């Protein structure tokens, strides 16, 4: 009996030992890393690769050897020793520049090379994007590809990739277009950002925070903020810089239409009107440029390729310096449209909301739907709808409107278009309106969907204007005798 128990214990132990030992060994064989390249990190593999000794030294010197040793995934485009022979020693000796240079060859995540892959912009560790296109990386060709290590890939290339300026960095440093550069840089403004400022206390009276005046200022540029941000690395742009002769030539064409009280403001306004149409989204090399570009404001920009003085490739597109961009005035100053359904105000103190209809209609002339405003039977003589318009040029404008009467063929009412100003009279306290120019009254024909010519306005100074659409001179609350309708007003510059 005792023997039996002893036997069974022995047997059981033996089985357990066999099972466990078999398991562990088999799994070890199955899982063990046998490829030595994968056991090492990128830095170790690169440093052991022949012909990459110079790049290895730069990695050590810039401190990127430690970056490539950690457990994130990277791709390295390593220039070989022959390529780095020509590298400017001033870059090697300046730590900051060297870091930017080395970072220009390393990116996060693994990008394998495939010769028939589509073009791809890769974000390098210095914030620049470089083009990875089939068998090229930027301007370099591949010596060997898709070498792997435990934490990523590296490819050996036959040229080093210089760190390119972006369009804005190039504009800041160029010497080819001094006047335009000076104007663009004059648009730099410091803006206060409370989230970046250091708070020193709280104002005891207002309870508002008090900031250290030396902190929190951020440099903005109005051109970058409001036209196109050509300082942005993620997208691609094309910028045209005018050399000094072309710049002053184009500026002189514009100044008559920006008459103000001072020469400076006239020049600044004209200059902005000029440069706003000289930066474009999308990258166009000199050979890719079409003969006309359309700016984001819809202005046609004629490009005569023989006027290109120089072209610079940047990290986010191209900058072309040109000796001439001959804008047509009619393109530079397109017609101004005032939509009838967006009134700024009505005759002061007389609310006629109940008589006002914002409509949608089909225009058989254009084949499109349009929105308009219609007022009927409001019972006020010379009632008007007012429209504010900002920044009109010092020029003559031909006025047209589309005013659709689809409510009755008789009686037809008359409308007038005027400009002028309204102010509050100091003594009476009433709002008084003075009309500067009133164009002749026009009868609103039944079912006329076409533009109707109204006359001309002349403005001697650049500035804001107010327009008034006046209804009939009689007061009536029935039969649509009193009515105003307006789809839009078009102001066409007459040079």
């Amino acid at each position, binding site marked *: 009996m005792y023997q039996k128990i002893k036997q069974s214990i022995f047997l059981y132990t033996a089985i357990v030992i066999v099972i466990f030992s078999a398991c562990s060994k088999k799994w070890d064989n199955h899982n063990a890393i046998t490829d030595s390249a994968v056991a090492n990190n990128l830095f170790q593999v690169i440093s052991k690769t022949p012909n990459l000794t110079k790049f290895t030294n730069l990695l050590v010197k810039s401190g990127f050897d430690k970056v490539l040793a950690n457990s994130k995934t990277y791709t390295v485009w390593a220039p070989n020793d022959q390529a780095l022979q020509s590298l400017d020693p001033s870059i090697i000796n300046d730590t900051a520049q060297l870091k930017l240079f080395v970072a220009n060859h390393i990116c996060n995540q693994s990008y394998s090379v495939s010769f028939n892959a589509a073009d791809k912009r890769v974000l390098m560790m210095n914030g620049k994007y470089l083009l990875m296109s089939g068998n090229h990386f930027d301007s370099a060709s591949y010596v060997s590809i898709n070498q792997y290590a435990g934490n990523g890939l590296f490819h050996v290339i036959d040229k080093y990739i210089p760190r390119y300026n972006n369009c804005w960095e190039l504009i800041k440093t160029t010497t080819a277009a001094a006047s335009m550069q000076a104007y663009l840089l004059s648009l730099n403004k410091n803006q206060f950002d409370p989230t970046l400022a250091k708070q020193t206390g709280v104002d005891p009276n207002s309870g508002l925070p008090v900031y250290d005046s030396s902190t929190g200022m951020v440099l903005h540029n109005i051109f970058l903020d409001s036209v196109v941000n050509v300082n942005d690395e993620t997208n691609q742009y094309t910028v045209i810089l005018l050399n000094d002769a072309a710049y002053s030539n184009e500026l002189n064409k514009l100044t008559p239409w920006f008459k103000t009280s001072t020469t400076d403001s006239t020049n600044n306004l004209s200059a902005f009107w000029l440069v706003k149409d000289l930066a474009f989204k999308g990258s166009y090399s000199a050979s890719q440029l079409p003969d006309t570009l359309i700016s984001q404001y819809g202005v046609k920009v004629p490009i005569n390729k023989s006027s290109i003085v120089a072209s610079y490739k940047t990290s986010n597109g191209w900058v072309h310096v040109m000796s001439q961009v001959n804008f047509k005035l009619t393109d530079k100053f397109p017609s101004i449209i005032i939509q009838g359904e967006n009134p700024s105000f009505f005759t002061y103190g007389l609310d006629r909301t*109940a008589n006002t*209809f*914002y*409509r*949608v209609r089909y225009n058989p002339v254009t084949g499109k*739907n349009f929105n308009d405003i219609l007022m009927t039977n409001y019972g006020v003589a010379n009632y008007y709808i007012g429209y504010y318009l900002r920044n009109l040029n010092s020029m003559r404008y031909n006025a047209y409107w589309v005013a659709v009467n689809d409510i009755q063929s008789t009686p037809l009412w008359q409308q007038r278009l005027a400009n002028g100003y309204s102010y509050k009279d100091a003594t009476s306290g009433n709002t008084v309106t003075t009309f500067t120019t009133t164009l002749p009254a026009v009868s609103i024909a039944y079912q006329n969907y076409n533009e109707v010519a109204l006359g001309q306005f002349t403005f001697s100074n650049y500035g804001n204007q107010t327009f008034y659409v006046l209804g009939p001179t009689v007061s009536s609350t029935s039969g649509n005798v009193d009515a105003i309708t307006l789809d839009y007003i078009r102001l066409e510059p007459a040079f």
Partner: protein
Amino acid sequence: MNKHMKKLQSFKSIRSLCIMALSSMLLFSCKKMMEVNPDTKLNATQMYRNVYDADAAVIGIYGKLMSLAKQYVILNELRADLTEVTDNSDGYLREISTHNVSANNPYADPRPFYSLINDCNDVLKNFNIMLQSNKFKQDEYQQRYSDIGAIRSWLYLQLGIHYGSIPYVTDPLETVDAVKDQSKYPLIPFNQLLDSLITFTQSLPFQLPYPPGTTLVTTVDGSTTGRFFIEKNILLGDLNLWKGNYTQAATYYRQVLESTGYFVSPGTDQFYQQFRQAYADVVNHNDLCVGYVRYKESDINSLIENNSQGWRSMFARNQDNLWLQQWIWVLPFNTNFAPQNPFIDLFSNNGGSYLLKPSQAAMDNWNSQQQQNGFPFDARGNFSYKMLNGQPVIMKYLYNYVDGTSLLPTNPLLKPGQWFLYRASALHLHFAEAANRDGRRLLAYAFLNQGIQQTFAPPSGQTDVTNYQNTLYDVAPYNFDGRQGTYPYFRGDWYRHNGIRGCARLNSVPVVGDSTISIENSILKEEGLELAYEGYRWPDLVRISLRQNDPSILANAVYAKLSKDGNPQAAAVRSKLMDPKNWYLPFKWQ
């Protein structure tokens, strides 16, 4: 030695004794364990014992029916012309949209339908057994048996529309896979299927809704069940409309038009308005029509648009009197219970996957209509879809999910909604289809456009409407009284009838050429404008194409959708759909 042997023997006997004891104990315990019934599952003896068990079976069928909602809407809308895939849609949805369906497409799988049909068959069989063993009163049996029988017919109608030829099985099967045995259950063509369905459904003993006081008319998961169940008269009307029995179809529809079985008191608002496509309340806008603020009808900003007034509100409002006037069959999704509402995921681009969107063709259809105030668009389009975050979004299913004003989800984690299965406007358009084909073209025109009163109006200056504003000269089911007179006084049962386009504030569509065909084509177009995305579209296209024997109606509609959305396969799909054989999904049992 002997002693030793003896010892061994006794040991052996002890051992066998032990084993015996042990195994008998095991068996005993087994038996006891078997006897304890699980708490959360029912066994066969606990089912079909009384009317409450029968009610549970009915509710169970409807609960399972709701899991078909997604497939139903995808098949009936995406195959047709008003719904389009988005960038987020997978290959299977694209296949459905371009009529190039592979055998393993889950949306084209008939098995979920057959699984439910099999359940219906099982329930019907057990109801018969219950009746024989007197666990059921005769009228209780008739109501519930008819309900489940009608559901089964409705499922078969759906299958027939999408698959053409299908096996028609009416006995419960052990497993649903037995359906694929074609030696037992041959595929029967659609026309023959319709005959079987009409014969069976007409023979159902109870054709009306569950009367009030029935144990099934109650509150389930927070919703009242009054409009929870299939409307058998409408199913019969639809079956006959498909078959081409127009008088029969119109007769069944008329039953519902007159609210037969709904117990509304004569003379009340509910009487004049329930299922009668009533005119708008132009003063307070407590209606289900397109409307504008009074005296500001020409102003775009005065369009009535919220969750409690006007046309849009029918998809958002609670089950109040107005809701009851329009909705005939609706299954609500509750946020607290399965099945989950699939429509948020299908349609919403905020909290959903945004898999389906309105096609450009659908938007163009709405934008080519003219309202009575001259606005060049159909306001129902504004309510059926919205541009949200720059994307067109189908809205009908989302009004319970989003805030009525901001159109943002009130709570992205709660996905309430409803499965809209049938409403009065669909009933009116289907009735008009039947009437038009039955020689009542002017009546059909009235139902489509501005209603009976306006269409049969007296000459101007005539105030005695005795002989106008009605069709009482005609026989049932085409005799309507829409009279509203002062001297002599009339308020006909149909005096508030306003027609589909009248209620949408649209001008009437002119009749061009052959009036039957012209009116029928206008009805088809109107079905798209009024009922888009509610699961009627593909059946409507198929039915009218079959009736006119003109596959180009369907093929051109799908072509318009695909070509306007820039699909390069558009022309190929059109030529494929010119052969009606290609209208049907492959009947494959994966």
